[in-house]
């Protein structure tokens, strides 16, 4: 189109045609088919890796030292992050509940109780799991994908060592244990910061008692159960994408991104499912 | 054209260049040889400001670039094209867009003129015009390297810096690159500075050659003199012998 002399106009034209071209890519039949296929492939692959790992967990050799080393790395490295994030979360929850409850029940006495319920049942386990996906999961993927790139995984297989047993099992056990520990620590930190920000309305004694009225053993068990279930997501997704990583820096980067996104997405979905199932069970029990 | 005056550079307390003095004349094809990791690449990176010298002066085309700011280096970089060891093509852009990258940003050419330029540059590196619409990762490694060279010559630099151009290539592809280096020097009348450890490439291409060892330049001579030099460090490098203290 030679009549378009203006450089800006041509730039806009090129940009528009590019948008149209890009937008087209997302909605072709093949595009949807490929996405669906990839979704099934990833879900299936992840499940296979999970089953493989669970199968290999009780099998010797038990590499206790490696498990402890991983647990130390996972726990110690993520502790500052968990403390900071859950600390803020505790304060945010209390601030938000102050606002909401003042309008609904016109009473701020029960804020510690509701904050406790929300922390134990929901935000404690999910946020800790999401933070572990970011901190630990991304680390696992980066580590394993660069091992794959430097052919270390092939070397393991040549020495007839099962890479899943050697690499995934210790990380799996360590993350699971640390997820539980960090969830408890995180909720404790959130409790402390929540208490600090509700000054001077409550003293420590009254804050604790009010919370005790609402939060029972079943909420604590809920926390542990959720932590165990959600904790399994991170190492499996991270290691899965690590094993699948493409070559070079680009491959490592993409694998890490996918690992984290998948982990957080699965955590949200799994958490929702647990809530729905728990709700149904509660109904049955009440009836 | 290019001059190093007593240039020093160290990384984390580890000295890499210890007083480099070198003069490269216009139109020359100059080779800097040396073992892997002695800092040959550092030397040419100093020229375009990707690294800065700790001490000493670097002159390019009568300008002292050592104290240049990043913005001032932009003009130096248009004069000095750098051919990286790996192709470093922008992998989100097509070959055409890679080649048009510098033209669109530094010239007022129309789209038609840019397309003509891109075709011409592809022809200069002996690639067919239909490569332009492909993505870089669809090409073979040797082709990617040639596209990288075509991108570098887009602004018609007067100096071409080659970083290990033939390293890791099979002899056939390496010979193609050697021929391209000779053609570039002739057709575009550029000064070529090549960092390499490939003696065959050196014999094919070089006018003059030097050896970088222990942070200093050992000898500057013609290729045939270099191969028969009596200097022990040169002999070690040419014959591929280990350093005396490491020998069994």
């Amino acid at each position: 189109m030679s009549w378009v002399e203006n450089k800006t106009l041509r730039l806009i034209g090129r940009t528009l045609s590019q948008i149209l071209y890009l937008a087209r890519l997302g909605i072709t039949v093949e595009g949807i088919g490929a996405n669906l296929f990839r979704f099934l492939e990833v879900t299936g692959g992840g499940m296979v890796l999970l089953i493989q790992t669970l199968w290999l967990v009780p099998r010797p050799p038990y590499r206790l030292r490696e498990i402890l080393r991983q647990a130390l790395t996972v726990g110690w490295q993520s502790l500052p992050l968990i403390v900071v994030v859950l600390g803020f979360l505790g304060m945010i929850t209390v601030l938000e509940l102050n606002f909401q409850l003042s309008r609904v029940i016109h009473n701020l006495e029960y804020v510690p109780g509701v904050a406790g319920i929300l922390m134990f049942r929901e935000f404690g386990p999910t946020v800790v799991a999401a933070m572990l996906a970011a901190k630990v999961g991304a680390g696992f993927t980066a580590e394993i994908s660069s091992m794959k790139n430097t052919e270390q995984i092939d070397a393991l297989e040549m020495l007839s060592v099962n890479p899943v047993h050697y690499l995934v099992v210790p990380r799996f056990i360590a993350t699971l244990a640390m997820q539980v520990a960090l969830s408890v620590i995180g909720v404790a930190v959130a409790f402390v910061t929540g208490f600090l920000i509700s000054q001077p309305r409550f003293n420590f004694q009254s804050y604790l008692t009010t919370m005790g009225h609402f939060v029972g053993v079943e909420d604590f068990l809920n926390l542990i159960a959720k932590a165990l279930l959600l904790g399994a997501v991170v190492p499996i997704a991270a290691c899965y994408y690590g094993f699948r990583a493409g070559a070079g820096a680009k491959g490592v980067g993409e694998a890490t991104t996918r690992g984290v996104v998948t982990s957080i997405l699965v955590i949200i979905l799994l958490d929702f499912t647990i809530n729905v199932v728990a709700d149904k069970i509660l109904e049955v029990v009440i009836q | 054209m290019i001059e190093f005056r007593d240039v020093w550079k160290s990384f984390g307390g580890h000295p890499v260049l210890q007083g480099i003095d070198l003069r490269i004349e216009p139109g020359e094809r100059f080779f800097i040889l040396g073992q892997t990791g002695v800092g040959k690449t550092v030397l040419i990176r100093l020229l375009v400001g990707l690294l800065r010298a700790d001490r000493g002066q670097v002159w390019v085309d009568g300008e002292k670039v050592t104290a240049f700011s990043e913005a001032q280096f932009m003009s130096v970089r248009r004069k000095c094209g750098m051919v990286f060891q790996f192709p470093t093509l922008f992998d989100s852009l097509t070959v055409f867009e890679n080649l048009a990258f510098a033209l669109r940003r530094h010239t007022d050419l129309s789209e038609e003129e840019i397309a003509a330029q891109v075709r011409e540059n592809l022809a200069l590196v002996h690639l067919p015009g239909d490569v332009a619409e492909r993505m870089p990762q669809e090409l073979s490694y040797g082709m990617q390297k040639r596209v990288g060279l075509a991108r570098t010559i887009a602004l018609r630099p007067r100096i071409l810096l080659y970083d290990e151009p033939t390293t890791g290539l099979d002899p056939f592809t390496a010979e193609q690159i050697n021929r391209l280096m000779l053609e570039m020097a002739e057709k575009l009348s550029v000064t070529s500075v090549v960092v390499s450890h490939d003696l065959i490439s050196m014999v094919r291409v070089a006018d003059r050659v030097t050896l970088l060892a222990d942070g200093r330049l050992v000898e500057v001579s013609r290729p045939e003199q270099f191969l028969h030099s009596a200097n022990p460090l040169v002999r070690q490098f040419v014959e591929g012998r280990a350093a005396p203290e490491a020998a069994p």
Partner: protein
Amino acid sequence: MTVLTRQVQRIRGPIEIGVMAFLQEIGAMAMFFAATVRHIFKAPFEVQEMVLQMYQVGVRSVPIVLISGFFVGGVVVIQFNYALSLFGAEVYLGGITTSGLLREVGPVLVAIMIVGRVGAYITAELATMKVTEQVDAIRCLGVNPVQFLVVPRFLAVSAMIFMLTILGLLVALLGGALVGNLILDINLSFYFANIRKLTAAWALFTGMLKSILFGILLATIACYQGMKTEGGAEAVGQAVNRCLVHCSIAVFLADYIIASLAALTYGLAEEIIF
């Protein structure tokens, strides 16, 4: 007592180093941010690159934001229903869920999801370009990498996070209502009855303000971590990891600051609006 003093002495060194490193990092990031903003107003503006990034960051994150937003809404309604049932205050479920999602849970959880998708993507891409010398190649072609790479990404990410958060919030509200209706058997007219009363425009405004701030923070951190990567393939993974951690902390910190500012001002604001 002396044992304690000795222990304090022993951990003081690392803590001082840590604090210094932290301050240096913050300073470097602020300078990076300033440089980026300065380059926004310099010609030429890379329209094509920005469109590409808006597609990569925005359009391609839509499915994930939709899915996560919907289920976050569902989770919140289930938990609020439980909490409110303790006071027999289920009447307020719709209002509280909507207000809570708009003000707090929505922006934060959608932001965490976007941190994983967008932050990691931007850092990984820039870090890859850095370690494969593509950034050096850009400099050698006489183009400023901040202008060509960082500015388009910064603007695209900031704008797209804002829009993705709006999208996520809408879906979360839908998810809340639907899950409340289908799983908890709450009548929808009952659910919607209180929304109008308990949700002020101020809640929406708080949520929007948060998403804008998160967008700027995330864009800065992701680009900064990508551009300062040095080394090989492993360094790319580590850069992504650092980006995720810093972004998460930044999101919760910013959320806390806005929440406490909102706590100070909401009474005033509600008086103005109503």
